[in-house]
């Protein structure tokens, strides 16, 4: 996966995306026991194109030019299907801005904070998100005060209470 992350960093350096961070099941796996997944969810902040249209097309074009192929909603980058998810709301923008800097082998990368992964799961609201919240609560080193502030800022307190009590 290190080569995959190197390619993502290159996309960022080339200005095709302004910032990226790992989220989804693999983001959760950073903090908890390994969680089965078949794709790597990568949240991205895209440069604003002309006409205020946010599009992943330049990223797909650049990856195609490097020989990487699309597989459904993912692009196979060095053997890992990567799904690019543009930050489309305030919670995701905040999560990307405050993502945790880390390294994978010799490659610098970013992973969403555990508190944001939990808040995003609450916002998304599927059964598997509920299970993710349970796992994060049980195993991740959550900062309770920080999490409460995130949930309050994004009006997620009611569902959080419903899911966790």
């Amino acid at each position, binding site marked *: 996966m*290190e*080569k995959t992350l190197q390619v993502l960093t290159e996309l960022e350096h080339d200005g095709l995306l302004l910032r990226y961070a790992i989220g989804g099941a693999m983001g959760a*796996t950073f903090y908890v*026991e*390994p969680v089965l997944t*078949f794709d790597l969810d990568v949240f991205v902040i895209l440069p604003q194109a002309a006409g205020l249209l946010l599009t992943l097309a330049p990223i797909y074009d650049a990856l195609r030019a490097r020989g990487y192929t699309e597989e459904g909603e993912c692009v196979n980058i060095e*053997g*890992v299907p990567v799904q690019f998810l543009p930050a489309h709301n305030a919670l995701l923008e905040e999560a990307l801005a405050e993502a945790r800097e880390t390294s994978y*082998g010799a490659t610098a990368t970013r992973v969403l904070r555990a508190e944001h992964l939990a808040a995003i799961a609450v916002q998304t609201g599927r059964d598997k998100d509920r299970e993710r919240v349970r796992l994060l609560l049980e*195993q991740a080193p959550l900062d309770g005060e920080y999490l409460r502030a995130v949930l309050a800022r994004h009006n997620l307190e009611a569902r959080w209470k419903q899911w966790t009590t």
Partner: protein
Amino acid sequence: MEAVDNLRPEIARLIAAKQERRHKLAALPFPEKVRIVVQLQRMVAPVLRARGRPVRVWHLTGD
């Protein structure tokens, strides 16, 4: 009822051991966890494919 009561400490010990193992897994370095995820993919992929869900096991390069 007596047999159930005798089982309880053993079951409690097994549950505690399982919980401890999960916390040990959570504490592994990220690249090691990624390798475990790929092992899980290998185990589950045939079942999912048999159910008609096309999945691809990651082919990690350079890890």
